[in-house]
C-alpha cells in the first residue's frame, strides 16, 4: 500500500489520538512527581526512624512509626501505578468494537486521565452530586472511541473558562432510553466570554455511534466563591443509544 493510500485509511479519531496521548502524558508526568516525591519523603523519614534506634535490632525501633511511613510509601506508589496504568490502557485501546458499555465507568476513567492535564489551567474535573445522576448507565457504543472523544472534550474545555473552574459531568437517562452525557464548565469567579468549540470529528463520532451532540452553549451557573452570584458557564449535551437487548 502506498503512503498516500495508507494515510487515506487513517480515521479522524486515530489521527487525533497521538496528540491526545501527548497532552495527557504531559499532565501525568507532572502529576507523577507528586506520589514519587511523597514516597521519597517518607523513605527519608523511615530511614531516620530506624537510624534513631539505639539498638541494632529493628524490633527496638519505633516500629509503629516506621510502619506508618511504609504505608504512606505504599499508598503513594499505588497512586503512581494507577496514573501510569491509565495512560497505558488509553494508548492501547483501539476503536472498532461496539457493545453494551457502562458510560459512567468510561467517564470515571476519562476524569482520572484528564484531571492532571487540566489542573495546570486551574481546572478541576468532578462528577455532579445529583439525585438524578445514574451510578451506572449502559449504552450501545464503542468504548475506546467514547473514551477518546470524551477526553478530547474535557481537554478542550479550558478554552471556555480561561480563568479556571470546574468541569462537571453527569449521566442521566432520557425518556426514550438513550443515555445523556451532560458536561458543564463552571468558572471559579469570573464571567467567561470565550466559546467552547467542539472538534468536528467528535461530533461525527457521536453520530457514527447513533448518538448526537449539541453545540456548546452558554448556561447560567452558581459561583463557587459566592453562591448568591450567577456566572456564565458552557454546556455540552451528548446522547448515546440505549443498551442492546440482543
Amino acid at each position, binding site marked *: 500500500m502506498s503512503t498516500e493510500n495508507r494515510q487515506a485509511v487513517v480515521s479522524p479519531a486515530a489521527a487525533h489520538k497521538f496528540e491526545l496521548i501527548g497532552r495527557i502524558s504531559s499532565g501525568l508526568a*507532572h502529576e507523577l512527581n507528586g506520589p514519587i516525591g*511523597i514516597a521519597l*519523603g517518607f523513605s*527519608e523519614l523511615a530511614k*531516620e526512624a530506624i537510624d534513631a534506634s539505639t539498638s541494632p535490632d529493628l524490633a527496638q525501633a519505633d516500629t509503629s512509626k516506621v510502619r506508618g511511613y511504609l504505608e504512606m510509601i505504599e499508598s503513594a506508589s499505588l497512586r503512581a501505578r494507577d496514573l501510569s496504568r491509565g495512560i497505558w490502557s488509553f494508548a492501547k485501546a483501539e476503536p472498532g468494537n461496539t457493545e453494551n458499555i457502562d458510560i459512567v465507568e468510561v467517564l470515571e476513567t476519562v476524569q482520572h486521565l484528564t484531571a492532571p492535564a487540566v489542573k495546570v489551567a486551574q481546572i478541576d474535573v468532578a462528577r455532579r452530586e445529583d439525585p438524578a445522576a445514574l451510578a451506572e448507565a449502559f449504552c450501545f457504543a464503542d468504548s475506546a472511541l467514547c473514551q477518546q472523544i470524551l477526553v478530547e472534550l474535557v481537554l478542550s474545555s479550558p478554552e471556555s473558562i480561561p480563568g479556571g473552574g470546574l468541569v462537571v459531568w453527569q449521566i442521566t437517562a432520557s425518556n426514550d432510553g438513550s443515555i445523556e452525557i451532560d458536561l458543564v464548565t463552571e468558572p471559579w469567579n469570573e464571567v467567561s466570554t470565550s466559546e467552547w468549540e467542539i472538534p468536528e470529528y467528535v461530533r461525527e463520532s457521536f453520530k457514527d455511534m447513533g448518538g448526537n451532540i449539541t453545540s456548546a452553549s452558554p448556561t447560567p451557573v452558581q459561583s463557587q466563591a459566592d453562591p448568591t452570584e450567577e456566572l456564565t458557564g458552557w454546556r455540552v449535551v451528548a446522547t448515546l443509544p440505549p443498551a442492546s437487548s440482543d
Partner: protein
Amino acid sequence: MVSRTETNSPRLRYVSIADDLQKQIESGTVNHGDRLPSQHEMAKQYGVSLTTLRAAVDLLEQRGLVRSAHGLGTFAQSPKPSDSAPQVLLVDDDPQVVDLLTAILEGEDLTVSSAGTAAEGIAKLETATFQAIFLDLIMPGGTGIDLLKAVELQGLKTPVVLVTGAGDAKLIDEAMDHGPITLIRKPIRVKQVRQVLEVLGVRNQAKV
C-alpha cells in the same frame, strides 16, 4: 520587601544576626518593650551593611519577637508560648503532601493545622496566629495567591513558604509581588523543610 530565601545557601549573615538578637530577647538580656539600638548602631556593632541589618530585623518581626514603630524605633516583644494551638498552617489540596509535611513538622514538635483550599486557609488565618504558612500554589477554587493577598491585606508578618512543583514559574513571580516568600520545590525533601524552619526560626515556643 520582595525576596526569595535560598534554602540551600550556607547560613546567611542576617539569619545569624537575627538568631543572636533572638537569644538576647529570649534570655531576658533584652526585655519586653525595650527599645533596640538604632539600626545604624546595630549595623556598626555587627559590622554589616544597613541592608543586612534591616533583613535581620524583618526576620525577627516575622518571628514575632520585635515590632517596629515608624519614627520611634524597634521594640522587643516576648515570645508567646503555646503548646496546643496550631503553630503551622498547611494549605495544599493533595492530602499526601499534607501527610508528609505534617509528619516532618510534628517530628519537630510543631502542631499543624491544614486546609485543602485557599479559601479554607484564609478562614483559618482568622482563627489562629501561625508561626509559618506552607502554601501550595495550584489548588481548586483559587490559587495560593488568594491567600497571599489575604495575608498582605491583614498586615500579617507570618512567613510564607511556597511548596510548589515545576511549571508554576508565572504564579511564583506573581506570588513574589505579595511579600517575602521562601520557596520549596517539590518533590519535598525532609532536610530542606527543616532548614527552612531553622532559617525562619519556627519552633515550639513552649519547649524553647
